[in-house]
């Protein structure tokens, strides 16, 4: 089992969670605003796609355009320390070099802790963030709502165009990814209003690569 991307020391855990704290409000959950101020141009993805190997190409592209040295992935639920370190002696935190491969990315998610194969991140991680060392961009995903949100500081940065990974506007995300997770696909008004208030500015502002409803990946 490859262990390299997994953080096993407390100093590394503290360093990467602190860095992520400059981008995300890790104690918040959707529909609250999970990005720090200054992040904008929100775009939306299907949660599961961020666990696909082709998503590594998106991360690597972001890293190249922003000069990142590394890309970190933090599992916020289950708890990265109490659950992961407590049970498996490794934190729910991964740190990939910029030149890592899609296979290494995928293998890390599929890596099964000893005697607990269902605890591979692929299956058990439910709230995850992805970000680069430049702190210029980030992705926040929540499995229960089937969605991930991308944000960046610099409006001039373009979201990568990678085959099989489409970024969508909020309306499409609501209809296609979020609604199916609610009974009869009815999203509570309060949830929806808060989501729109916090993330609706993505519409028509994301460099022309955001697909509209009906476009397929």
């Amino acid at each position: 089992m490859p262990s390299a991307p997994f953080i096993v020391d407390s100093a590394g855990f503290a360093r990467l969670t602190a860095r992520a704290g400059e981008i995300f409000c890790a104690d918040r959950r959707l529909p609250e605003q999970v990005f720090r101020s200054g992040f904008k141009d929100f775009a939306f993805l299907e949660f599961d796609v961020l666990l696909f190997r082709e998503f590594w190409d998106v991360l690597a592209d972001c890293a190249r355009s922003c000069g990142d040295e590394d890309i970190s992935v933090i599992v916020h639920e289950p708890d990265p320390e109490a659950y992961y370190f407590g049970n498996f002696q490794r934190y729910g935190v991964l740190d990939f070099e910029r030149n890592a491969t899609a296979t290494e990315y995928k293998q890390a998610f599929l890596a099964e802790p000893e005697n607990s194969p269902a605890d591979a991140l692929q299956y058990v991680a439910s709230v995850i963030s992805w970000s680069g060392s430049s702190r210029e961009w980030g992705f926040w995903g929540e499995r229960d709502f089937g969605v991930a949100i991308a944000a960046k500081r610099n409006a001039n940065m373009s979201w990568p165009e990678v085959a099989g990974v489409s970024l969508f506007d909020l309306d499409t995300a609501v209809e296609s990814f979020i609604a199916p997770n609610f009974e009869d696909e009815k999203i509570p008004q309060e949830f929806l209003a808060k989501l729109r208030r916090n993330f609706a500015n993505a519409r028509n502002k994301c460099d022309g690569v955001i697909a509209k409803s009906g476009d397929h990946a």
Partner: protein
Amino acid sequence: MLLRVLPLLIALALSLAPKSQAAVFIASPPASSPLAATPENACTAFLEDGSEARIGLLCHNDPVNHTDPTGLAIDTIADIGFIGYDIYKLATEGGGQGGENWKALGLDGAAAAIPFATGAGVAFRGVKAAERAAEAGRASKYEDSTKAGSRLINRETNVTRSQFEKNLAEGGWQKSVSKDGKVANYEKDGAKYSVRSDAKSTSGPTADYYKPGHDKPDIKIRLKKDE
């Protein structure tokens, strides 16, 4: 012999048309059924004889593994089953009252040519039988609910998580559970289901299906909440 082969040939020939969504009924196979499931068949259509038709498919207790992503296989199998059943009824009962059995065969033949218009003959005999089976918890339904933009095929079902897991366990799938008990994985012959309850939203639990050798899910099954 002709009686056995004819429906297969008809259905296979007619079910080549492109199709877009699936609706599948699954129920316990009657042992006395003339087309009962056999272990040798990966996914066998069967039909229960009776005063009113009750229809279904048995897929080795694995309702999704033996469907293809487009639903083509299931539809084809269903078409074969319906036509076979019509012919069986004709052979054992003749034309039936008012030529009912001949009409049913005609309808099923026509339905086989239409994507997912499976089983028109059975509908003719009375859809209430299927409804009653569903009410009695003996039939399960899987419907395509995939949305635009989704990379995963989504299927909505009236099967609960506990029923679903029971079926997998009885089908010989090996279970492993996460330390927090929220995720249960089932593996068999390289395929995998990852079943989880959702903690926050109000819909039911889900089961992600991985085909053998796939490292990403192919189908997301949206299970019904346990009562």
